[in-house]
C-alpha cells in the first residue's frame, strides 16, 4: 500500500450512558507520523463514519492539555490504562482497542467519572493548613532540597487514575481509596507545616479502605505515567501508621 494511504484501525468500545450496554464500533483514520490516540479521535470527530461507511456519532472522551500533564484523557488502550494524548500510534499494535477505564463508572463512551479520587483527597486531608492567604511577615520554613525533590516527584501526580485502574484491589464495590491518594497523604506529611496534620492523615489511612486494603501487588507503580514510586511511599506510610498505632494504644 502506498505510504499516503496507510490507515490506522481502531476498535472502540462505546456506551451511550452509565447504564447502557456497551457495544463496539470500528473506525479507520489516515496515518501520519507522530499521530496519537487523541489526534485520531479528533479526526473521527470531523468525519464520524465507521469503517463500514455507517454514519455514527463522534466518540465521547475527555481531554484538555494534550501534553500528559492534566490527567484527563486516561483510557484503556490495548488493555493498558494510559494517557491517550501521549499514546503514539507508532508504538501500538493494530487494531488499536480503546475502552473506558471501567474501574470507574462510565459516563459515556471513553469518558469516566473519577470524582472518587477527588473525594479521597478530602479524606486524607490533602492540603497544608495555612492560617490564610494574607501576608504573615514571615518566610515559610526552609526545606532540605533532598526532601523537596521527593515531594516534587509525588506532587506531579495528575489524578489520572492509571494506578487505580491497574490495582487489583480498587473497584467500584471496594472501599479501598487506592494508591494515588495514599501517596498524596505522604506528600503533605513531608512538608514542614503539612506535617502538623500527619497524625490525622495516618489515622484516616488506618480506617477501613485505607492502607490495610493494599495487597502489595506492585501493579500501581508500573502503571504510573509519572513514574511516582508509589509502593515505596505506601511502605513508608505503613511504617508510619504502625508507629502511630502503638502511640494511639498507649494514649488510650
Amino acid at each position, binding site marked *: 500500500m502506498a505510504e499516503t494511504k496507510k490507515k490506522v484501525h481502531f476498535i472502540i468500545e462505546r456506551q*451511550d*450512558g452509565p447504564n447502557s450496554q456497551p457495544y463496539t464500533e470500528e473506525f479507520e483514520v489516515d496515518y501520519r507520523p*507522530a*499521530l*496519537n490516540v*487523541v*489526534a485520531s479521535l*479528533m479526526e473521527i*470527530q*470531523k*468525519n*464520524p463514519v465507521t469503517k463500514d461507511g455507517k*454514519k*455514527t*456519532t*463522534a466518540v465521547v472522551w475527555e*481531554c*484538555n*492539555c*494534550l*501534553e500528559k*500533564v*492534566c*490527567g*484527563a484523557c486516561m483510557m484503556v488502550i490495548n488493555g493498558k490504562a494510559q494517557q491517550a494524548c*501521549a499514546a*503514539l500510534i*507508532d*508504538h501500538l499494535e493494530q487494531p488499536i482497542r480503546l475502552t473506558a477505564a471501567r474501574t470507574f463508572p462510565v*459516563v*459515556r463512551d471513553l*469518558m469516566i467519572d*473519577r*470524582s472518587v479520587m*477527588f473525594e479521597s*483527597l*478530602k479524606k486524607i486531608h*490533602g*492540603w*497544608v493548613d*495555612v492560617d*490564610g*492567604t494574607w*501576608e*504573615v511577615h514571615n*518566610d*515559610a520554613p*526552609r*526545606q*532540605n*532540597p533532598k526532601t*523537596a525533590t521527593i*515531594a*516534587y516527584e509525588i*506532587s*506531579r501526580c*495528575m*489524578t489520572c487514575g492509571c494506578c487505580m485502574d491497574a490495582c487489583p484491589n480498587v473497584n467500584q464495590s471496594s472501599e479501598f481509596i487506592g494508591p494515588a491518594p495514599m501517596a498524596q497523604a505522604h506528600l*503533605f506529611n513531608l512538608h514542614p*507545616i503539612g506535617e502538623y496534620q500527619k497524625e490525622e492523615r495516618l489515622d484516616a489511612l488506618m480506617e477501613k479502605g485505607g492502607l490495610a486494603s493494599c495487597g502489595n501487588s506492585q501493579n500501581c507503580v508500573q502503571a504510573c505515567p509519572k513514574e511516582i514510586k508509589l509502593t515505596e511511599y505506601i511502605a513508608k506510610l505503613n511504617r508510619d501508621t504502625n508507629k502511630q498505632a502503638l502511640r494511639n494504644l498507649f494514649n488510650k
Partner: protein
Amino acid sequence: MKKKIIVVGGGLSGLMATLKICEAGGEVELFSYCPVKRSHSLCAQGGMNACMDTKGENDSVHEHFDDTVYGGDFLADQTAIKGMCEAAPKLIKMFDRMGVTFTRTPEGLLDLRNFGGQKNKRTLFSGSTTGQQLLYALDEQVRAWEVKGAVKKYEFWEFIKIIKNKENVCRGIVAQDMNSMEVRAFRADTVILATGGPGMVFGRCTASTICNGSAVSAVYQQGALIGNPEFIQIHPTAIPGSDKNRLMSEACRGEGGRVWVYKDGKPWYFLEEMYPAYGNLVPRDVASRAIYDVCVNQKLGINGENKVYLDLSHIPADYLERKLGGILEIYTEFVGDDPRKVPMQIYPSVHYSMGGIWVDAKHNTNIPGLMASGECDYQYHGANRLGANSLLSAAYSGTVSGPEAMRWAKEGEKGSELTDEELAKAAKECRDEYEAILKMSGSENAHELHHELGDLMNQYVTIERVNKDLDYCFDEVKKILKRWDNIGIVDKAGWANQEGMFARQLRNMILYALVVTKAARMRDESRGAHYKREFPTRDDERFMKITIAEYDQATEEPKISYDDFDHSLVKPRPRNYAVAKKE
C-alpha cells in the same frame, strides 16, 4: 445572609479569587469545564516572576516593573503593573507556605532562573511543571474550604451567559451540566469570569483544548468591552501537531540550540546570518518573524512545510540531559524522535492573548456586577507579555478581583435581585437555543469548520499582518459565521453531548475571531506582538492608546475605538533588544 459570588473558571486566577472570597466570609459557586485541578494553568512549565533578590544581583521591584512596562511596549496600565510587581514576592511566600514544591538551592532557599526580557534572575520554578504545582496548591486550599462548606463546585458545567436585572446589573448566570445537559440559571451578588485565554480561536496553539474564549465572547455579545484583542503572543518554538502545538521552551536556544533550514542543499543558519549580534537568541517576536519569513515568503521550510530545524544534536548528550532533560522528553514522547540525535522540527505558534475583557483597576468590567481576572482580562501585559509574568498576573488579579467582588456584594448598587420568573426566562432562552442547535441538519461539520477558522486566523492574524489580507480574512471569517447556520448535528443524545456544546462554543469563537481581526486591521503601527510591514515602527502619537472593541448587535461585528490608559509612571522610550535596556 452570606454573600454569594459566582466564579467561572478554576485556573490560577479563579481559585485565588475563590480563596479571598471565602476568607472574607463569602460563599462561592465555582464553575468549570473540568475538575479545576485539570485547568490549563497547569501547562505552564517555565516559572513565575517575583523579585526575591537572592542571587546577589541587586534585583529590585522597580526593575521588575520597568522590564514589564518595556517588554509590553508601553501599552499596559503602569499603576496596575506596579501593584502586581510589589505583590509578587508576597505571593511566592504564600505559595511556599501552602506547600508548592519550588526547586530549591543547596541551602534550602527558593531557586531562581533567568527568563526572557529581564537581566536578573527573577523566575521561581518548580522543576519543569511550575504551573501545575501552583495550581495544585490553590486547588488544595479551595478543597479545604469546600469541606467547610464555603465552596460549591460545579465541575463539568459550561458557562453560557450572564443574567442582568432590570437595572442592567449582572446578578447571575446561566450554565449547562455537560453530562445531564440540564440548563440552569443561578443567582449571585457578583460574578467573576476567570476563564483563561482564547487560543482555540486559532485552532491549534500551545494551550489546552478548553481555552476557547467562548465565555469571553458570550459576555462581549452581552455588552462587555474587550481591550487590546489584537495582541496575540506567538512563541517561536513549538512542535507543530495536528492536534496541538506543543511548546518547546526557550531554554533550548539558551543552551545552544541552532535554528536552520536547507537552502541550496546546505544548512542555512538564518537567525545567525540575519542577526549576527544575537543569533539564535533574538527575542520571541523577532525569531517568530524570521522563521515565518523563511517558510512562508521564501518557501524554504522542511519538505515545503511550515517547519524549521531546532538543532541540539551537536551538544553532548550528558550536558543536554542535565540542562534540558524534562523538556526533551516531551519531544521524544510526542514526536517519537530523540532530539539528542536528530534536529527537532519546530514552528512558531499562537501562545497567549495579552488582550481580553476590559477591566478597571479593581477588575470590574463595564457591566456592573461582572468582573474579570486572569488571562481573560487585558490588564497587565500591554502589547507583549514577558515569560513567567502571566502566572503572576493570573494569581495576582485573583487577589484583587476576589476582595472587590465581596466589596461590591456588600456595598455595590446591585439593584433588584433576580426574580424566579427572570431566572426561568433566562434559562429557557438558553435551553431553546441549545435545542435549536441539536435540531440543525445542514451539511457542515462543526469540527471541520473550526479547522478552517483556525487555518485562516493562523495564516492572516498572527506573526505578520497585512491590511489587505486582514480585510480578506475578516470577510472569510464572516462567511464561516454564515456557514455556521448550515451545521448538521449528528448526535441528538440528551446525555454528555459534546457535539452540541461544541457548536455553541464555535459560534462564540467565530465572533471573537472577528474582534481580533478587526482590531489588528485598525492598528496601523507595529508594537510588541503586533507587526505590520506597511507600518514597521511604533506610533505613540496615534496609537499609544488601548483598543476597545464593542459588539454591534446589528452587524454582529465589533466597533473599534481607542482610549487612554494610565502611563503616569515611566515615559515611553524605544524598545530595542539589540542593545541593553536603558532607563
